[in-house]
C-alpha cells in the first residue's frame, strides 16, 4: 500500500516538476521579450521580401504563398532555437537538469514544449495575417494554420537535437542550420503540399495524417536523441 502511495506521490511530484520547469522557462523567456518577438518580426520581414523581389501580382503570390510562408516559418523556428539550451548551458542549469533524479526525458519534453509555446504557437497565430497579404484563399489559410499547428512542434523537436549537439560550441548558428535543415525537409514537403492542396480545393486529410505521424514519432524518439546529445555536449 505504501509502495503504491509512493509511486502516486512520485508521479504527482514529477508532474509538478514538469509544470514548474515550463513555468520557469516561460518566466525567464518573458524577461527578455525581444528574444521572443524577433523571430516573429523576422517571419514577417522575410515573407514581405517575396512580393518585392518576385512580383506583386496577386495570382502569382497566391500560387507561391504556401511555399513562401512555410519556408519563412521554418527559418524563423531555426533562429529561435538559440533560446532552447544556450543560456541554461552557460549558467549550469543544464548540468543540474542532467544530474537530477527527474527523468531527463520529461525535462526535455518540458523544455521543447515551452519552446514551441513561445515560437511555434505565435507563428501559427500570426500566419493568417501574412496569408492575407499573399492573397491565400480562406480554405488555404485554414490549412496553413492546421499544418503549422502540427508541423512546428516537429520542427522544435528536430531542432532541439541539433541545438543539443552544438550547445557547447562557439559560433553555432551556421552549423546548426547545416545540421537541421535537411532533416526539416519532410515536414516542409507535406505541410506546404497540404496548403497547396487546400487552396486548390482538394482534401488534405492524408497530409495532416502524415504530419501527425511525424509529430508522434518526434515526441517518442527525439527526446532520446536530445538526451544523449546533451550528455555528449556536457561531457567536454
Amino acid at each position, binding site marked *: 500500500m505504501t509502495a503504491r502511495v509512493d509511486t502516486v506521490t512520485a508521479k504527482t511530484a514529477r508532474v509538478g516538476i514538469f509544470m514548474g520547469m515550463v513555468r520557469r522557462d516561460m518566466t525567464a523567456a518573458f524577461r527578455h521579450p525581444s528574444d521572443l518577438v524577433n523571430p516573429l518580426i523576422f517571419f514577417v520581414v522575410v515573407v514581405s521580401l517575396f512580393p518585392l523581389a518576385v512580383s506583386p501580382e496577386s495570382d502569382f503570390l497566391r500560387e507561391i504563398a504556401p511555399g513562401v510562408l512555410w519556408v519563412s516559418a521554418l527559418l524563423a523556428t531555426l533562429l529561435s532555437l538559440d533560446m532552447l539550451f544556450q543560456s541554461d548551458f552557460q549558467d549550469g542549469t543544464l548540468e543540474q537538469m542532467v544530474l537530477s533524479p527527474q527523468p531527463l526525458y520529461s525535462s526535455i519534453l518540458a523544455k521543447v514544449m515551452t519552446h514551441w509555446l513561445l515560437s511555434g504557437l505565435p507563428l501559427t497565430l500570426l500566419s493568417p495575417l501574412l496569408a492575407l497579404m499573399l492573397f491565400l484563399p480562406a480554405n488555404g489559410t485554414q490549412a496553413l494554420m492546421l499544418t503549422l499547428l502540427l508541423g512546428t512542434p516537429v520542427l522544435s523537436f528536430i531542432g532541439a*537535437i541539433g541545438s543539443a*549537439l*552544438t550547445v*557547447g*560550441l562557439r559560433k553555432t548558428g551556421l*552549423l546548426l542550420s*547545416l*545540421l537541421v*535543415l*535537411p*532533416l526539416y*525537409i*519532410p515536414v516542409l*514537403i*507535406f505541410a506546404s*503540399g497540404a496548403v497547396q492542396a487546400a487552396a486548390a480545393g482538394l482534401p488534405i486529410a492524408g497530409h495532416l495524417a*502524415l504530419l501527425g505521424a*511525424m509529430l508522434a514519432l518526434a515526441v517518442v*524518439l527525439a527526446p532520446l*536523441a536530445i538526451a*544523449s*546529445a546533451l550528455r*555528449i*555536449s556536457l*561531457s*567536454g
Partner: protein
Amino acid sequence: MWRWFHKLGSPKWFYAISGRWIPWFAVTALVLLVLGTVWALMFAPPDYQQGNSYRIIYIHVPAAFLAQSGYVLMAVAGAIGLIWKMKLADVVAKCCAPIGASFTFLALVTGAVWGKPTWGAWWVWDARLTSMLVLLFLYLGVVALQSAFTDRNQAARASALLSLVGLVNIPIIKYSVEWWNTLHQPASLTLTEKPTMPAEMWVPLLIMVAGFYCFFAVVLMMRTRVELLDRERRTGWVKEIINDKRTGKA
C-alpha cells in the same frame, strides 16, 4: 566471434591486418574496374532507346550504391563507437564521411551528365535526384559537425549521434520526396527502366559495382590507417613502426 570483435577494436591489430589486406583489395579493385570498364564501354550492346549515352550507368549506379551503403556503414560504425566505446569504430566512422560524400557527389554529377542527353536538362527535380541531394547535405552536416569539436572523443560521439538521427530520417525523406514528386508531376521524366535488362548489360554493371566496393574498402582502409597513426602517435607500437622505417632506410 567475440574474440575477433575485440581484436578488431585494437588499432595495432587493425593496422597490421589492413596492411596485408590492402594489396589484395587494390588488385581486385583494379582488375574488376578495368574488366568492367572495357566490357561496358566496348562490348555491351547499346540501348535501343538511349543509344550509347546510357553507358554512364556503369559509373553512376555503383557510385549511387556506395553513397548509400557508405552512409549506413558510417552510422553503424558510429553506433558501435557509441555503445562499445570502440576507438577503431570512431575512426572508421570519421573516415567514411568524406568518402561517402565524394561518391554522392559523383553520383549526382554523373546523373547530371546522363540527364542532359536523356531528359534534355542537367538537373530535374526528380525524386531520386532530390533524395541524393539531401543525402549529400546529410553527409556535409556530419563532416561539419566532426570538424567543429576540438575534442576528438566528443566529435566522434556527436557525429555518430547525428548520423544515427540521419539514418532514421533517410527512409522518411526518401518516401516524402517520392510522394511529393508524384503529387505534383506524374512520371513524365522518370527513366523508363526496363526490368528485363539483357545479361550483356547487367553483368558488367555487377562487375563495376563489385569493383567500386573493393575500391571503397581500399580507400577507407588507407584513410583509417593514416588517422590511426596520427591518433596513436604517442603509443609504443607506432613509435616502433617509425623506428623500423628509419632504420630500414638508413
